[in-house]
């Protein structure tokens, strides 16, 4: 069994075993799943008025329900050199496959984008599991090493081309500065931060040559205990800023370090 098949089967097995019930969208609309009770405002559909609640309170209240219409899931895989560090790329593949099978399981549309040498490639959305497999296959055939990526230009492109409301799942390591505010204003956005443990806590190694995975160029910098401390401080500052940004714009996010924890993590972020 080749590695690709292994990734797909594993994702499928995990998702179908652990996932049950429907994925709740945060979009409000017509459905059967109660979301909240709000005061009537001009423009609200009178069919939504909760007569019992209104009678109890003496004011008109409207029941807001979660939208039950088909959800369009757009998975954006940020493929670049840094994904080759540790087991990050395997985690990315497994995450995309898992999201695809979740969509398939829930009869939602699944499609997405991935980057090759900084350019976006589109995977047409469909409800078929073949789309999931095609997407992962395309990603699997890429070698992320030596590829660089402008996060912001990718997001700008998505803003321009994603017209209908969708659940946008951005999978990347988010080590560059990123602004998802505009995207989150229009769409529901989930950020999946794929990292490697060694990337967050680099082990001290005295005799190594550091190579930039986005350019494949060796660096004259060296990894000393003090340099590691300096790096970790920078990373913490960056992550704190990132968390603030996500929270500030209602973006759900998770951090995944290993393929084994994908299902559990996705379960939390989608609950």
């Amino acid at each position, binding site marked *: 069994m080749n590695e690709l098949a292994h990734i797909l089967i594993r994702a499928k097995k995990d998702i179908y075993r652990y996932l049950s019930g429907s994925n709740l969208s945060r979009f409000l609309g017509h459905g059967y799943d109660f979301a909240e009770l709000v005061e009537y405002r001009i423009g609200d559909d009178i069919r939504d008025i909760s007569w019992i609640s209104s009678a109890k309170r003496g004011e008109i209240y409207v029941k807001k329900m979660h939208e039950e219409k088909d959800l369009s899931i757009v998975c954006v895989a940020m493929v670049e050199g840094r994904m080759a560090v540790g087991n990050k790329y395997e985690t990315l593949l497994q995450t995309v496959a898992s999201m695809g099978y979740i969509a398939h399981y829930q009869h939602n549309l699944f499609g997405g984008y991935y980057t090759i040498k900084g350019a976006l490639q589109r995977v047409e959305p469909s409800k078929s599991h073949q789309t999931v497999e095609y997407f992962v296959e395309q990603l699997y055939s890429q070698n992320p090493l030596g590829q660089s990526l402008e996060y912001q230009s990718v997001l700008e492109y998505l803003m321009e081309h994603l017209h209908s409301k969708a659940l946008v799942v951005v999978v990347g390591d988010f080590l560059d500065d990123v602004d998802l505010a505009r995207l989150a204003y229009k769409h529901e956005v989930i950020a999946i931060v794929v990292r490697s443990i060694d*990337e967050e806590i680099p082990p001290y190694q005295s*005799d190594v040559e*550091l190579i930039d995975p986005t350019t494949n160029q060796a660096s*004259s910098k*060296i990894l000393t205990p003090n340099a590691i401390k*300096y790096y970790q401080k*920078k990373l913490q500052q960056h992550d704190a800023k990132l968390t603030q940004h996500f929270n500030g714009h209602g973006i759900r996010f998770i951090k995944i370090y290993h393929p084994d924890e994908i299902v559990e993590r996705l379960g939390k972020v989608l609950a």
Partner: protein
Amino acid sequence: MSFSLLYPLALVLLPFVGCFVYCKSRPKPIYFSKLEWLPKSYLRLDSDRWIVMGVFGLLVVTLATPYLYKPDANYHKKGRDLVLAIDTSGSMAQSGFDSLERFKSKYDSAIELTHRFIQNRHDDNLGLVVFGSFAYIASPLTYDLEGLSQMLHLMSDVGIAGDSTAIGEAIVQSIEALKHSRTQNKVIVLLSDGVHNAGSISPKDAVDRAKKSGIVIYTIGIGKEYDRELMRLIAQKSGGKSFEAKSAKDLEVVFEKIESLEPSPLRSSDTLNIQKLHLYPLFLAVVLMGFLVLRRVF
């Protein structure tokens, strides 16, 4: 104070310190995500490598054994190689020799005064021969006066070499002790309170051998019952002097007289007053290694 190295050849290892920079194996390449978040490094080597190089350098210096010495202080130093031959026969246990302490034996008084004599011999190399029915070298020639004092306690006691008096053998053993001496002044100080009555070597033969070796014998007769004539002859034939110590006070005077005898230059003046410094670089190397280990563990 002058500085020198005991094993300067060890310094040929020092250029190998360059191997930590140039002979190192090809470093393992690893991909690092955010190189821009690492600080700029002005040194191509990490601090660990500098520490290892430092440890190597310090160990080489330790091996070369640096030391400080005072050449001037030693070149004009004068002294002699001197062997004390002490009688430990049974008669030395008699008391009444010291008028202040009547129960003190001749042996105890002699040992006490010998100790004082030893303490003042800063420029001499001293040896110790103990004799009774036979003789043995209790300590070879040494400038370690502290050690010699201890040997005097440990290796001698009344009757330790038998109750008789083998003066001939005592002289021969003393000659043996002076065999490797290179000074002009080689001296035997023979302390005895009896008559020659043991041993296979006659005092006459022993004195002849001493004379041939250029050794001067000073004899000290202790008490009143010793063989005055023999002691006088031994001293006279070897070019020395014979002294008589009827009491502890006399013995003290005799030792003072011997002290005033003209000394000669010492054989190895430049090895004295050496202050070896090799422990300092060794200590520093151990501290650096400890630091390195702690840094790796924590």
